[in-house]
């Protein structure tokens, strides 16, 4: 079975096959209905899937998420009341404060994982989804897809959201802290980003190929 001479045979693309990225088993590719996924029979990992949403729906979702992202950053996250003074705090002003008070590296991580990376992700999604819709290959598509793959594990809006809740509880003895529209915005953004991540990047590669 393994006597094929790999050294002399020319390189060939096998669109009829799918290889499991977690156990290296080779599977025959078959058509899928919307919302279906093909799982590896050996290890159970997802080989490839077809999202319930089509490209237009994904575009709408991305645009919606971008609008929510802007709103969540423009609106204050919390209001604090203590001794007759009311202070409102926005995400970016909180990050700057954290930077000023010696949590520099942590502030940088927060700025990246909660602000920059999700924003970059959404912008790149917008770009690649529009590229997929075009009949011709778009320059920059390949680079944008690589960036999306690298960014995916470093987007942590949902963790940040729970982090805010924890800090609000911890501060309850110092001040009256109330959640504001920005916090709800981040909640909605979490849901939209989760919906977007159900769309496998490999599905977009295949869609761009067709």
């Amino acid at each position, binding site marked *: *079975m*393994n006597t*094929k001479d790999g050294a002399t*045979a*020319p*390189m*060939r*693309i*096998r669109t009829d096959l*799918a*290889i499991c*990225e*977690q*156990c*290296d*088993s*080779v599977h025959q590719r078959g058509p899928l209905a919307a919302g279906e996924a093909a799982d590896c*029979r*050996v*290890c*159970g990992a997802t080989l*490839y899937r077809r999202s319930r949403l089509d490209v237009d729906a994904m575009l709408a979702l991305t645009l919606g998420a971008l609008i929510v992202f802007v709103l969540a950053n423009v609106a204050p996250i*919390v209001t*604090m009341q*203590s001794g007759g*003074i009311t*202070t409102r*705090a926005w995400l970016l002003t*909180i*990050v700057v*404060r*954290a930077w*000023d*008070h*010696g*949590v520099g590296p*942590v*502030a940088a*991580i*927060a700025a990246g*994982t909660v602000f920059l990376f999700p924003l970059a992700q959404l912008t790149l999604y917008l770009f690649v989804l529009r590229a997929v819709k075009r009949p011709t290959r778009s320059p920059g598509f390949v680079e944008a897809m690589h960036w999306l793959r690298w960014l995916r*594990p470093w987007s*942590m809006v949902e*963790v940040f959201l*729970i*982090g*805010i*809740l*924890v*800090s609000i*509880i*911890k*501060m*309850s*003895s*110092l*001040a009256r*802290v109330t959640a504001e529209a920005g916090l709800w915005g981040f909640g909605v953004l979490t849901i939209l980003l989760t919906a977007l991540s159900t769309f496998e990047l*490999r599905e977009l590669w*295949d869609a761009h190929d067709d």
Partner: protein
Amino acid sequence: MTDDTAIPRGAPLGLIGCEACGLVVEHAAADASCPRCGHRLHARKPDSVTRSWAYLLAAFILYLPANLLPVLHSKKLFEEWSDTIMSGVVALWKDGAYDLAIIVFTASVVVPLLKMGALALLLVQVQRGSSYLPRERTRLYRILEFIGHWSMLDVFAVALLVALVHFGALGNAEPGAGVVAFGAVVVLTMLATMSFDPRLIWDAPRTPARRASDRPPT
């Protein structure tokens, strides 16, 4: 009867699945790039075990200062105190926020330890060429990938707390060195998990008889 071991694997057939885009390429040269996305093609992630161990050991070492050093110094009236992660959990518990105390304890103490332990186990078994329960070990790896970033919870909570206390001029709160160490542990563990190649779990020779009881997935 179909057996898992009857399903061919890519490497012996000269087939490589691109890690970046999933394209299957046959007879790729040793230094070839993916024709679709340009990513370098390799049958296994290069130096996966060494790189994974390096990140993991660094994370193990930093885990100590992350838990022993205070994550927060604060001053309220004339009273000064420092919080480590554990004392923060205890404080939440005493405040009656049991659910959050459990969440923080799980995310910051239990999960990082379990994660590092599990990854060390996966690495040791790959190095020993173990063929024990490959399916379960692959599932364990998938869980590690999924929960990795949740340990950042307490780091965010401390940074937010410091920022908000200053914002509202509510007193004095400064971050401790523990919080930076903790953030580093989380990032290093995530890098260690990403460097590990789960395909190595399946590279050890398997005997078909042992897996006969496996239920076929539908």
